[in-house]
C-alpha cells in the first residue's frame, strides 16, 4: 500500500498548491501594502468616502484629503457585479435548465459549446461592444424617456459582463443539474407535477449546492473582471447605487495603477497592492460565509 | 415435467421426496404381500418381522413430512411444485395407513391359525390381496411417471375391490346362516381382513387421486 500512500501524498500536495499560491499572493501584496500604509493611514483607506488618487500627485500631499478611500470602489465593484449577476443568473440558469431538461440531445450538443464560445471571446471585445454599442444605446433610450445618462454607465458594463459569465453559469450548472438523479424527476412527474414545477421545486433545490458553486465562481469572475469595466463603465469613483452612473471597480484601479505611467514608489502605485490585498481579504470573507451556508445546507439534505 | 428447475437442488429435493415415497410404497407392498401369505401359513417370526417393518414405514413417513416441510421453507414451491411437495405428505399418510392395515392383517393371521379356516373365503381374501397389491403397484408407477391414466385405472379398480369385499361379506353371512359351524371366529376375522384390504384399496385410490392432482391441480375428492 506504499504506492497508495504516495499517490495520496501527491494529491494532497496538489491541494496544497492552493495554499502555496495564496501564501505567495499574500506575501507579494503585504510588503508593498505595508509601505502604502506608512503613507496613508489604514482608517483613511478603509473608511474614506472618496477615491481620488489625482490629488496625491506630489509626495507632500499624499492622503491630505483622504482621497484613498476604498468605499467608492467597493460600491462600484458590488454595483457592477450585482448587475452582471442579475443578468447572468437568470440567463445562465434558465439556459442550463433548458439545455439539460428540455432541449433535444442534438440541440444541446451544439448550443452548449456555442455558449462556451461566449466565455472565450476576449474581454477586450466585450469592452468595445459595451462602450460603443450598448452604452450609446442605453444613453439614447434613456434620452427618449428624458433621463440624463452618461455615455459611460455601470449598466452597460454590467449587462455585457453578465453576458460574458453566462456560459460559466450555464455550463457548470448544466452539469450539476444533469447529475440530479432521474428518480427525483420521476417521483415528481409521477405525482402529476408539470416539468417546470418539477424543475423549480425538486431539481433545482437538489442541485442547489452545485449551482451555488457555479454562481460563486461566476460572481468571483465578475468581481475580478477588469477590461469591460475599464472600457465601458468609465473610471469615476463614485458612491452611487444608480446603475446609470459611471463607476469604477477595485480591479480597474489596480490595473490602471500598475500599468500607468506613475512613479513606482508613489502612494498612487502602492495603493494598488493595498487594493489587491483588500480584495483578497473581502473575497475570503465572502467565501468563508458561503462555505458555511453551503455546508449547512448539505448537511441537511445530502 | 421435462423442464428442470433453474435451481438444480430443487429438482434433487423433489426427487428425493419421491424416492422416499417409493421406498415407503415398496415396503408397504411387501407388508401387504407378506401379511397375505401369513393368512394360510402362520409364522410368528414372520409376523414379528412384518410388525417390525411398520416402524420403518413410520420412520419414512416422518422423513417425508420433514423433507416436505424443509422444501416449503426453502423453496416456497408454487403450482405443480407445491402439489408435488404437498402430495407426498398425504401419500405417505395413506401408505402409512396401508401399512397399518397390513400389520392388522398379519396380527389376524395369528388368530386365524388357531382355528380352521374356510378355504373359499381365504381364496377370496387372496384374490382381494392380489388386486390391492396390483393397485398399489400401479399407483406407485403412476406416481413415479405422473401417469394420470394409470391412476384413473387404479381408481376404477377400487370398485372391484369393493365388490370383492361385498361378495366376501355376503359369502360369510351365507356360511354363518347355513351352518352353525365352530369357525365363526375365523370367519369374522376374515371379514375384518377383507375390510383391511378394502381400506387398502381405498387408500391406493386416494393416492391415485393425489397423483391426478399433482399433474392437473384438480382435486377429485369433491367430484368422485
Amino acid at each position: 500500500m506504499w504506492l497508495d500512500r504516495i499517490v495520496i501524498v501527491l494529491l494532497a500536495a496538489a491541494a496544497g498548491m492552493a495554499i502555496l499560491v495564496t501564501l505567495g499572493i499574500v506575501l507579494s501584496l503585504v510588503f508593498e501594502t505595508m509601505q502604502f500604509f506608512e503613507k496613508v493611514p489604514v482608517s483613511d483607506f478603509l473608511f474614506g468616502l472618496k477615491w481620488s488618487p489625482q490629488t496625491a500627485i506630489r509626495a507632500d500631499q499624499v492622503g491630505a484629503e483622504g482621497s484613498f478611500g476604498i468605499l467608492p470602489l467597493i460600491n462600484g465593484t458590488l454595483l457592477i457585479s450585482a448587475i452582471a449577476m442579475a443578468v447572468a443568473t437568470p440567463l445562465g440558469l434558465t439556459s442550463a435548465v433548458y439545455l439539460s431538461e428540455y432541449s433535444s440531445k442534438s440541440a444541446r450538443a451544439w448550443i452548449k459549446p456555442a455558449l462556451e464560445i461566449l466565455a472565450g471571446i476576449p474581454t477586450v471585445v466585450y469592452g468595445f461592444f459595451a462602450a460603443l454599442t450598448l452604452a450609446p444605446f442605453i444613453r439614447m433610450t434613456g434620452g427618449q424617456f428624458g433621463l440624463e445618462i452618461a455615455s459611460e454607465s455601470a449598466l452597460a458594463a454590467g449587462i455585457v459582463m453578465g453576458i460574458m459569465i453566462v456560459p460559466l453559469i450555464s455550463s457548470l450548472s448544466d452539469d450539476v443539474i444533469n447529475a440530479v438523479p432521474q428518480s427525483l424527476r420521476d417521483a415528481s412527474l409521477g405525482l402529476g407535477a408539470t416539468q417546470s414545477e418539477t424543475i423549480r421545486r425538486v431539481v433545482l433545490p437538489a442541485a442547489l449546492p452545485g449551482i451555488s458553486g457555479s454562481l460563486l465562481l461566476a460572481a468571483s469572475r465578475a468581481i475580478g473582471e477588469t477590461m469591460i469595466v475599464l472600457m465601458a463603465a468609465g473610471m469615476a469613483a463614485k458612491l452611487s447605487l444608480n446603475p446609470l452612473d459611471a463607476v469604477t471597480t477595485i480591479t480597474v484601479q489596480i490595473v490602471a495603477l500598475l500599468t500607468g505611467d506613475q512613479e513606482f514608489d508613489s502612494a498612487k502605485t502602492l495603493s494598488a497592492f493595498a487594493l489587491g490585498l483588500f480584495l483578497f481579504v473581502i473575497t475570503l470573507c465572502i467565501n468563508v460565509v458561503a462555505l458555511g451556508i453551503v455546508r449547512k445546507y448539505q448537511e441537511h439534505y445530502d | 415435467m421435462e423442464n428442470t428447475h433453474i435451481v438444480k437442488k430443487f429438482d434433487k429435493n423433489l426427487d428425493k421426496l419421491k424416492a422416499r415415497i417409493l421406498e415407503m410404497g415398496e415396503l408397504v407392498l411387501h407388508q401387504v404381500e407378506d401379511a397375505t401369505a401369513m393368512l394360510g401359513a402362520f409364522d410368528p417370526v414372520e409376523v414379528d418381522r412384518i410388525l417390525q417393518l411398520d416402524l420403518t414405514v413410520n420412520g419414512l413417513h416422518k422423513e417425508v413430512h420433514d423433507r416436505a416441510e424443509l422444501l416449503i421453507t426453502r423453496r416456497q414451491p408454487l403450482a405443480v411444485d407445491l402439489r408435488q411437495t404437498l402430495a407426498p405428505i398425504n401419500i405417505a399418510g395413506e401408505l402409512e395407513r396401508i401399512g397399518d392395515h397390513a400389520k392388522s392383517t398379519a396380527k389376524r393371521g395369528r388368530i386365524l391359525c388357531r382355528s380352521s379356516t374356510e378355504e373359499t373365503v381365504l381364496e377370496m381374501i387372496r384374490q382381494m390381496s392380489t388386486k390391492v397389491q396390483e393397485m398399489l403397484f400401479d399407483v406407485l408407477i403412476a406416481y413415479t411417471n405422473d401417469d394420470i391414466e394409470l391412476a384413473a385405472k387404479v381408481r376404477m379398480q377400487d370398485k372391484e375391490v369393493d365388490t370383492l369385499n361385498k361378495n366376501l361379506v355376503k359369502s360369510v353371512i351365507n356360511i354363518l346362516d347355513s351352518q352353525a359351524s365352530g369357525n365363526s371366529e375365523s370367519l369374522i376375522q376374515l371379514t375384518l381382513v377383507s375390510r383391511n384390504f378394502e381400506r387398502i384399496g381405498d387408500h391406493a385410490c386416494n393416492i391415485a387421486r393425489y397423483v391426478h392432482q399433482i399433474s392437473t391441480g384438480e382435486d377429485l375428492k369433491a367430484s368422485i
Partner: protein
Amino acid sequence: MIDLTKKAGFGLDQRHRAEQRFQWAGKLAIATSLLFLLVMVGSIVTDASGVLRQTQIAVDLDLGPENVNPSNPQAASYGRIVKSSLRDMFPEVTRRKDKKRLYNLVSPEGSFEIAAMVTDNPALLGSVQTLWLTASDDLDLFLRGKVDISLPPKQRRISDAEITWIKILEDGGQLRRVANWGFLSSGDSREPEIAGILSALIGSAFSLAVCFALSFPIGIGAAIYLEEFAPANRISDLIEVNINNLAAVPSIVFGLLGLSVFLGVMGLPRSSPLVGGMVLALMTLPTIIIAARAALRSVPPSFKEAALALGASPVQAVFHHVFPVAMPGMLTGAIVGMAQALGETAPLLMIGMVAFIVDIPDSVLEPATALPVQIFLWADSPERAFTEKTAAAIIVLLIFLICMNLIAILLRRKLEQRF
C-alpha cells in the same frame, strides 16, 4: 369518475401557462445569449474580412550593377531603388512633401521583400525587373473604399494627388489584390499591411500547453484529494475556502505573483510562454478544481463502494471507477478554465508578454506574446488598418477556442452518461 381532460381541475390552465412561460424563458435565455454571440462574432467577422486579401503594387526596379553589387546583393539600398523607380513613374512629382507621399504608396516592407526575392532568385539581378511589392495600408484602405473621398482633403489620409496616382496605377494594371497568407504565416509588425498573427498564435499554443500540463493534473489531483481523501478538519476547510477565494483574485495579481516568484526567485526568462503558462495555470487552477469537485460529487457513491467491496484500495477505487465517470465534468471545467486563460491579458502584462515580438518563438523559453495580447496591442495602435487586424486576430482566437472546445466535446461525448 375520473376526468382526464383539462377540465379536471388542479388549476391546469394556469399551470400549463406557467409551463409554457418557463419553456419560453429558457428559449429566450438561450436565444439572448446566442444573439449576443451572433452580433459580436458577426461584427468581428465583418471587420475582419478586409484581412483576407492584400494589395500589391507593380514597380519596375533597376537591379543593374550600378545599384546592386551582384557579389553582395544584401548590402544594396533597395529602399532607394524603390524610391527612384517611383519617381521615374511619376516624373511630374517634384515637391519634397509630395515625393514623400509618393514613396508612401509602397510599404516600407517593400525593400525587404526585394532583398528576399533577390536572395531566392539571383537571376533577377543585372537588369530592370517588374516586381510586385506590398502596397501601403493607406493605399489598401483606399482601394477597398474605406476612405471617404467626399471629405475635404485635410480630413483624410489620402490626398487628391495620391488618388490621381492610384487611379493611374490602377488603369495601368499595376495594382492587384492577392490572398493575404502573410497574416497567418508571419509575426507582428508595426506596419499593418504586413503584420501577422503567427508569433502570437504559437505563443498562445505554447502557453496553453504549459498551462494545461500544469493546471489539469494539479487541479484534478487537488479536487480528488479534497473530495475523496481529505480528512474533514480545519486544514481541509482552509484549503477549500482558499480555492474558492483564488477564483476571485483579479488576474493581474497572479501576474504579480508570477513576477516575484517565477521571474524573481526562480529566475525564469522574461516574456517566455513557460512563465506565461505557469501564471495562467495558477489562475485557472481554482476554476478547474471547483468544476472537477462538482463532477466528482455527482458520481454515485455506489461505484466507489462496489470497487471497495471487491477489495480495491481507496486509491484504486477512485482512479479506476470514480475518476473516469467524472471525466466529462472535469473536462468542462478545464475548458472553461482554459478558455479563460486563452483570453487573458492582464497577468501576462506583469511577466513581459505584452510585448512587441517579431520573431516566431520555437520553444517555450523564447520571448513570445499571446493572442489576446496581440489583440490588445493592435486595438491600441493608432493606424486605422490595425482595426481589421484586431478583428482578424479575434477570429483566430475564436477559431483556436473552437478547436479546443471541439476536442473537448468529442472527449465529453465519448464519456458522458446520465444516471
